[in-house]
């Protein structure tokens, strides 16, 4: 019974934890501009993250070490350093976006300017990272993030033309007035939002924090193959809500308040309360994950003691890196740079850094020295290789498309 409960909790956490500020903004923005014509990019991203998260979870369960703990050892210090530099910069940018997201969500609940909420959010994050047990912080944030299911309820209550939505999703077309470069720019942003690198850092390091062994592979797979796709459905519900309510009014999304408007239209104050709770939980949970991921990646590269399963004094350098990254992330938002803009750029730069994150996972998941008999099978390798090609194309196209479209304008 305890095991079933653990699996169920893991799945719920994976669903609630799947959506972060990047998913909220990107899906709503794209839904309002393109309808569901880019749903395929989210689906593709969800398949990709399932594939690679399963590999990194399996690596953690079999070897007892996080994937990136092994990168330097397996691929050498230079590749490890390139991997560290790219992933740390992108994760730090995402961390800033999440801190900004918490502040924006609290502003919606209070109408107090978001900049005043940034230090409060920073302090709360630090206290939670410092004091709260790993399993508690992961599960509470993930389960509260389930409040975003309200977008699915709102979509149902909006009584949309389902056939039209399905038509948009299954036979995608670039809407009139939108250029193809813009269409593909946003496709890459959605793909990057679903496959954000920190998700696999956190998933594999989290497996080590929770002391996974080979018998936990089933739990890990259930989290990934059930939880993540259901989280992807949440993303699609957010996009569909925007397509139904915002698109006909020609509203383009550039604030978090606009993301929640369809829920208010459909469900009123109670629905909106759930949406705001979901915004806070999703961004707070993702901020914890990105903050810890910064610490994980640096500490694992340098071989320092890391993790929350040891006391802070025993992993002092890890805790210091997390704290410094938190100060940098909060400081970035306090410069008054628009957190939504930071989010949009973090998605594109995530896409650029994807190959450096996902290639090492594929290599290590194929190494019998670490994996023994649990190396990738043929299907996993075939799909992994296909996805690496897609990731490489997205990575190479991201910056030119950003310049050509002036960041999607």
């Amino acid at each position: 019974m305890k095991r079933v409960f653990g699996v169920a909790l893991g799945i719920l956490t994976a669903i609630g934890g799947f959506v972060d500020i990047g998913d909220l903004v990107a899906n709503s923005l794209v839904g309002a501009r393109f309808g569901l014509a880019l749903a395929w990019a989210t689906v593709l991203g969800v398949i990709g993250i399932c594939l690679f998260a399963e590999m990194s979870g399996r690596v953690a369960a079999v070897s007892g070490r996080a994937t990136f703990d092994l990168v330097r050892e397996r691929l050498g210090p230079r590749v490890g350093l390139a991997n560290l530099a790219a992933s740390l910069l992108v994760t730090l940018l995402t961390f800033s976006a999440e801190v900004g997201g918490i502040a924006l969500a609290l502003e919606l609940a209070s109408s107090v300017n978001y900049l005043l909420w940034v230090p409060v959010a920073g302090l709360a994050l630090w206290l939670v990272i410092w004091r709260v047990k790993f399993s508690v912080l992961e599960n509470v944030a993930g389960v509260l993030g389930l409040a975003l299911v309200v977008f699915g309820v709102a979509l149902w209550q909006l009584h949309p033309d389902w056939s039209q939505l399905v038509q948009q999703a299954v036979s995608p077309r670039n809407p009139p007035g939108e250029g193809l470069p813009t269409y593909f720019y946003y496709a890459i942003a959605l793909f990057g939002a679903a496959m954000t690198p920190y998700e696999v850092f956190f998933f594999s390091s989290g497996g080590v924090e929770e002391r996974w062994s080979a018998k936990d592979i089933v739990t890990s797979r259930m989290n990934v193959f059930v939880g993540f796709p259901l989280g992807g459905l949440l993303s699609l519900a957010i996009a569909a809500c925007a397509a139904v309510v915002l698109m006909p009014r020609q509203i383009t999304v550039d604030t978090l308040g606009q993301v929640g408007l369809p829920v208010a239209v459909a469900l009123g104050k109670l629905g909106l309360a759930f949406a705001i709770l979901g915004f806070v939980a999703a961004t707070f949970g993702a901020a914890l994950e990105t903050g810890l991921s910064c610490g994980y990646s640096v500490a694992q590269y340098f071989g320092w003691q890391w993790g929350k399963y040891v006391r802070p004094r025993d992993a002092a350098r890890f805790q210091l890196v997390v704290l410094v990254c938190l100060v940098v992330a909060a400081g970035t938002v306090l410069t008054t740079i628009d957190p939504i803009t930071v989010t949009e750029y973090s998605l594109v730069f995530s896409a650029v850094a994807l190959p450096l994150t996902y290639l090492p996972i594929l290599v290590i998941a194929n190494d019998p020295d670490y994996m023994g008999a649990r190396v990738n099978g043929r299907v996993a390798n075939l799909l992994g290789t296909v996805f690496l090609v897609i990731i490489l194309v997205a990575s190479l196209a991201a910056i030119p498309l950003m310049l050509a479209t002036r960041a999607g304008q």
Partner: protein
Amino acid sequence: MRWLAAVVVVLALAGCVGPAPTTDQYQGKAAHTAADALAQLETARLAVEHAGRLPATYLETVLVDAEEAFDSIENTFDSIEPPDDPMADRLRSDLDTLLSDGSDGIAELRIQARRSDTAAMASTAHDLGETAAGLDRFHQEHDT
């Protein structure tokens, strides 16, 4: 170091004023401005139309965000130097009128929302429908 300072100054000035050397380019920027402004105006109107379903804090934040974004769009357009062409002057004048009406209207909505004057908000939002239609028409006519 002097050349570096010169480059910084040139880039800073370039960031302040967006030149529009041809009428076509100016028209494109005007159409783009109208679309951006319409999005903010419609956000404010949608929020006010459902004001009874929104907590006051949420409504106020949405309106303040829309007002700030609208004003920024208006200021950016006003900072563009129009080409020496009567058509460009006409474009500027037409759009300025719409932007000014929109800006005033959203500010009014924000004030009425703070006073919880639901009837006045509904009336202002209704009146802003004409400005929204005007911005939409402007965008359709001039989008190249």
